[in-house]
Every structure is written in C-alpha cells, then in structure tokens.
C-alpha cells in the first residue's frame, strides 16, 4: 500500500515557541489515521501546517509525489487535501447550501453529483438547505463542516477534533460518518482528544506529546498499550 501523505522532520514554531518538533509520519492511502494527544501537544499545528495555514519552519510534506511545504493554501486545497477546522467554523450568516458550495470553491466543474453525494450522506443538510448555518445545532454544524470539506472532492480529508463539544450519541454518529466516508475511498487523518473513539476507528495511530511523536501502532495496539491507557483512556495502570 502506498502512502498518500509523508511528513518528514516537520518543525513548526509560533514566534519562537516550538509547537511541533521534528516529527515524521505517514498516512497510507485509503486508511483512517489518527493523531492523538493532550492539549497543546501540537496536533492542530501539524494539520494547519500541512494545509498551509501556518508556514512550517522546516521539513518536507509529500502529498502524492508533490511537495506541499511552502505552498499557499489555495494550491494545496486544489491538489486534493481539505481540513475540517477545529470548532466546526461553518459560515453562520450563509445558508447551508451556500456553505456547501463554498467548499467546492476551488473547483470549476459541475457540482450536482457531489451535492447529491453529500446530501445522501447527510439527509439533514438537504432538508435544511435554505436555513442559515448559524441556526443549526452543534451536531448538524459538524455534519455541515464535514460535508463542506467533501465538496472539494478531496483524496485526503483532515479533521481537527470533530467530536469537540458534542453529546456522546452525536459523537458516535460523527464516527459512523467518518467510517462511511473512508469506505467510499477517502483517506482520513483524524486529530482527536477522544482517544478511545479515534483509536477504535483508526487503522494506524500516532501519539503526540509536547510536539513530538512518542508512540506508533495500529489502533488496536495503542488501545491495548498500558501507557496510552493510563494517559488518554483514563484507566489506571495494572500493577
């Protein structure tokens, strides 16, 4: 299996503070990969630098044979990566339909088919096409944020904390959707604090701590790992 994304020796700083320290990881094509870790571990910074919202200090980001480091966001998005930003960030004063269309902003071809695809995945969004996005519930906004990202027809979709601030039952729904999207051939890079759910959904997991990747393994391996259990799953180490 080939890797769709390869990150090598990535460093990201904000005004002298190093958020990401020399990390390397790969995302194999067609899989769900998760990056877990506590607040401030550098997970979001990693995603933001991959999509070009933050310029990496050094390092390589290879996406399908092409180098992304240093490119502006619009060019990165048009190559087939989208970020579902943390905290959903839908456009509150625009309708649901307009939000979806903005997702396809970089594309010039016909949208009908993809609009239908997204509406099939999220029937709610079709019902609410003319409603302002700001009036949706938290769960619906998360659906919209994911649907909006899908409208750019990405090969790799990166999600930053999709379960943030949602009720457990809604979180379950979000992860069902993530699996469904993955089944349809989209590679997923998931950043989560909800380690339990994320590792269950993932083929491959990385654990980040204070800017470094400290552990790697399949989702199941990490779920069983004693240190991960102690640090992220809230289960005490067995003596």
């Amino acid at each position, binding site marked *: 299996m080939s890797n769709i994304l390869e990150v090598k020796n990535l460093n990201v700083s904000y005004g002298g503070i190093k958020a990401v320290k020399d990390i390397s990881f790969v995302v194999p094509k067609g899989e769900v990969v998760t990056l877990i870790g506590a607040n401030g571990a550098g997970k979001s910074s990693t995603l933001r630098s991959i*999509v070009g*919202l933050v310029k990496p200090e050094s390092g390589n980001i290879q996406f399908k044979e092409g180098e992304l480091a240093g490119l*502006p*966001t*619009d060019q*990165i*998005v*048009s190559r087939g990566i*989208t*970020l579902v*930003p943390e905290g959903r*960030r*839908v*456009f*509150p*004063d*625009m309708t649901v339909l*307009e939000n979806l*269309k*903005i*997702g396809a*902003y*970089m594309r010039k071809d016909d949208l009908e088919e993809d609009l239908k695809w997204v509406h099939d995945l999220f029937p709610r969004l079709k019902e609410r096409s003319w409603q302002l996005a700001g009036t949706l519930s938290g769960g619906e906004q998360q659906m919209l944020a994911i649907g*909006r990202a899908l409208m*750019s027809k990405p090969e790799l979709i990166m999600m930053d904390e999709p379960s943030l601030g949602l009720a457990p039952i809604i979180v379950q729904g979000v992860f069902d959707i993530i699996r469904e999207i993955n089944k349809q051939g989209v590679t997923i890079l998931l950043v989560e604090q909800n380690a339990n759910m994320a590792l269950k959904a993932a083929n491959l997991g990385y654990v980040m701590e204070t800017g470094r990747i400290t552990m790697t393994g399949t989702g199941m391996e990490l779920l069983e790992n004693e240190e991960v259990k102690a640090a992220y799953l809230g289960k005490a180490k067995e003596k």
Partner: protein
Amino acid sequence: MSTKTKAAWNVGLIAALLGLLFILEQVMPSGSMLFTVLKKGAIYALVAVSMNLLNGFTGLFSLGQAGFMLLGAYTYAILTIPTESRASVYQYFDGGIVQFALPVPVALIAGGIVAAIFAYLIGLPVLRLKSDYLAIATLGFAEIIRAVFQWDKLGPITNGSNLLRNFPSFKSVLYPFIVSGICIALIVMLINSTYGRAFKAIRDDEIAAEAMGINLAHHKRLAFVISSFFAGVSGGLLAMYQTTIQASMFKSAMTYEILLIVVIGGIGSVTGSCISSFLFIACSEWWLRFLDNENLYIGGFHVPFLRPGFRKVVFAVVIMAMVLFYRQGIMGTKEFSIEAFSGFFKKKFGKKKVEEGGGSHE
C-alpha cells in the same frame, strides 16, 4: 414564482419606474425638491451599495469612500471641461496642462478606474489590517487625498483649492437613475456569483474561508478595488449633479453620511441601502429642513432650540436610537423582492379574512 416570471416582473417594474420618472419630469416644475432628492438619492444609492459591498458583504470596515468619490469626481471634471473654457476655469494656472476633453461616459468610467487604481495601491499595505485599524487607515487616506488635491503645486491639473466648473452635467433625472441602476445591477450580479459567495465566507469566518482554499489577500483586494471603482463612478455623477466641485466638499462627514445610509438600510442588504439612501436624502434636503428655521411658529408658539444645523442633531439622535434599538436597520440582511412583498400582503390579507370570519361567527 419561476425565475422567468420573476425576471419579467423585475423588468416591468424598472420600466414602470423609469416611465413614472419621465412623466413626473414632464408634469412637475423642474425646480421641485422632489427632483433634487431623486437625483442625489440615486447617486448616494450607488455609493452606499458600493460601501455595503465592502462593509456588509466582505466584512471590511472601510471609511475611505469620500476619498474615492473625490478621485472619481476630479477625474471626471478634469477630463471633460471643454477646451475653450479651460482658460477661465484654470485662470490661476495658465489654463492647466490637460488640453483635451473626453466624452461623458468615457470620463465617468475613467473616474472609476482612477479610483480603482488608487484602491489597489492603497490596498496593498492597508488590507493587512483588520476592523477598526482598517477603518482608521482608510479614513486617513481619504483625508490625505483631499489635502493633496488642494495642493498648489498640483494646480495645473487639479486647479488647487479653486472650483472646477463648466464640465457637462445632466438635466434629466433619468440619467443618474440609469447609470446608478446599471452599476448596482453589476454589483448585485457580483454578489450572487461565486466571488460574492467567497466574499461572504471571508466576512463570516476568515480562517475557515482560508481553509476552503479562498485566497484572502486576493479576494479582499478584489472587493476593495471593485467597491472603489463604483465609488469613483458615483463621485463622477455627484460632480455632474453639483455642476461645480472642490476638494473641500469631500470631507469625512460625507463618508459618515454614507455609512449612516448603509446602517439605516441594513448592513448586508442592497435594496436596504437604496431605500435608505432616498429616505436619508429626502430627510436631509427636504423634509427636515424646517428644523433649520430659527423662527418657526406653530400657532403663535415659538419652537425652541431650532437654528441652522439643528437637523444634524436630529440625525445624531436617530443614529443612536438605531444602534441601540434597531441594529438590523430597515432590511437587515434581507432583500426586497416581489415575492416577499406579495407574501407580506397575502399574510396580512389572509389574517384579515380569518378575523372577519371569526367576527361573523359570533
């Protein structure tokens, strides 16, 4: 309602409006205040909509409108003063250095283009700023432009601080209506295009918009340049309406008037800006004029406080009341449409019927 009948309705309405204006002009005396209001209102409607494109749809709070209008007005005037009257207009500067005159439409567009070029250059540094800082920077630009145009050294082009006059103006009220109408239609088409959607996305959430692949700097500059272009055109129209111009006319107070129109109409509503523009001009030029009359008596009672300039106090109170109690303005972010209009009346009418029915029941 299908798009076709909607378009037919709109075309019909516009034709009816122009027809009505034409008839009014034939029937009413040409000195009537009504025409002043209509002419100036149409011009202010255009500049208000152009400001709304920036403030309401792109979320860039800019206060440079008067500066761009000045650029448009001066460009128009300088390019259209007939060569034979240049000597008398530029009497202190040996007839000036521009010795040709362009046709009116070309000069109007040139006014827009000059404003747009300045907007592009100023936008390069200024659009990095956000909210209040952007407002202050653009306001400063407008003041600088005004001062520069009054500078004696530029006299051979701008006539220094002296009046520019003798350029062609319009007689018919239809002229500003048609020009503003075309420009506003262009702005509305822009707002409804994918570019317009990107502008709104930037207004709603810059970070998310950037993550969707929208190039922030490019789109902000585009909105700024286009808005300034139309402000320039409206400046040209204002010059035509006033028949004489002078840089000192384009004070920041002018920008505030336009801002007031945009806020009263509803930030983010094109039709709101148009409606409130006519309302504002009608009030300030006509309906509230009596407030400036120091010797106003109502049945022997001398109304106190009234003196020249008092109506401006009333405006200040109105804007405070608006901001406190009616922040949405007349239209909010909604647009006036025939559908909504007929729906409104259907609702009222339907309600009445129900009430009548209820009454007969008893």
